[in-house]
């Protein structure tokens, strides 16, 4: 069902955890629908220097959380905003069609965290 990359990111998720005093936090999804992702960003000079996440959700939700946080680490805020769920799914070697909606979660959570950062920093 899942590609090897998905299984790797699911079993060995990168960037799990929280950041104390983060520059931006985003949380999307709700428990009723079965998935929630919370992203914590540490940003210096518009560069994402650290990122952590916590996710309640299925294998695809956890794997996309892991992959997408990897993909934005070290990138500028604008680059991170340009990240699409399609790009994340591709980097994971594809997702089953019924699971594509899970990859949207990560994209939205990152966007929400950046928005939070911008708001806090009046950008």
């Amino acid at each position: 069902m899942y590609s090897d990359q998905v299984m790797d990111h699911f079993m060995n998720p990168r960037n799990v955890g929280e950041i104390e005093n983060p520059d931006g936090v985003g949380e999307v999804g709700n428990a009723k629908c079965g998935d929630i992702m919370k992203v914590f960003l540490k940003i210096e000079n518009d560069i994402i220097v650290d990122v952590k996440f916590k996710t309640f959700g299925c294998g695809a939700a956890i794997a996309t959380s892991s992959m997408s946080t990897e993909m934005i680490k070290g990138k500028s805020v604008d680059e991170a905003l340009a990240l699409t769920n399609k790009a994340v799914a591709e980097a994971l070697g594809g997702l089953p069609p019924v699971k594509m909606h899970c990859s949207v979660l990560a994209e939205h959570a990152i966007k929400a965290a950046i928005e939070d950062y911008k708001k806090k920093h009046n950008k």
Partner: protein
Amino acid sequence: MEQRIYLDHAATTYTKPEVLEEMLPYFTRKYGNPSSVHSFGRETRKALDLARERVAKALNADPGEIFFTAGGTESDNWAIKGTALANQKKGNHIITTAIEHHAVFHTCNYLERNGFEVTYLPVDKYGMVDPEQVRNAINDKTVLISVMTANNEIGTIQPIKEIGAIAKEKGIAFHTDAVQAIGSIPIDVKEMNIDLLSLSAHKFYGPKGVGALYIRKGVKLQQFIHGGAQERNRRAGTENLPAIVGLGKAIELATQDIPGHSARLTALRDRLISGILSKVEYTRLNGHPTMRLPGNANFSFEFIEGEALLLTLDIQGIAGSSGSACTSGSLDPSHVLLAIGLPHEIAHGSLRLTLGDQNTEEEIDYVLEVIPKVVQRLREMSPLFNQQKGGQKHV
């Protein structure tokens, strides 16, 4: 993966070697059509008759009341649509429950889209139907009551005899989906006042793709699959002889010592249930504590999602299933878990482990070692867990 522990017997089982052995000649040597005049047909006709007798015996029915189908789903479709359409002049109301298998549930939904009215009776927190609610739901348009013998997800066993008595008293056809019950609970269609009963061989160590519908003599039922004159003109299609032979053998084996089989599974199951409940906090058992299938355990682990749990267990060699929406690609979790009152987020974190003939205590003990760790790991990843436990504050 060194060992693999199969705890998904409610989904499907293997075919027992002695069942397969009885089937084998019917693939390559005894392949005649039982309707044929020639010797190839006569030898399969005998096997067909024997299988029918074996099924009848297991249910305390007459062989003439047994009709072979392609499985539990077809039996359910036939029983429900067949009764509904045959009684259109009499009425258009069907009573069923909120926890039926999709084969019943979606068939009822289909009939609703086509002019029928369906009452889906609620169940209590253990998943139990109240016979008095069945009685109260009956109106003068009611033509069918369909209540499953035992639930496939949470294992709750229903008061079938009581419901059958009410249906009989009111002169309404009574169908029960006994797909999960065969081999685990003694069934007597006469004593239980059952008019129609569905079963499926692959749930009791028979082959897949074959089932039966018991139709009490005199019960009105429209044909569902039209064509040739097989099954006394009521279910068309060349008889699936190897599978029918397997069904016959499997039901004979499955019903020859129900108390012994049930006692063995119940002991294993209770070891599993008490182990999990004592080792993993924020966990509940779904279904009835005692009126449940001997092989069924169903848990909800708060703060985590079922598919992620299944995937991790699979990597550790444990095969289970879940009522999580994410295993099916739909968004809502199991209608059964919602019907017993679980909130969505807890229903999402469910795990069903269903035991079978070959499971051992050692396997259960291994499972009891693995699950707490896996649950812990996923909870640590979950944004709900710390919040709930009042540890890390919402930042």
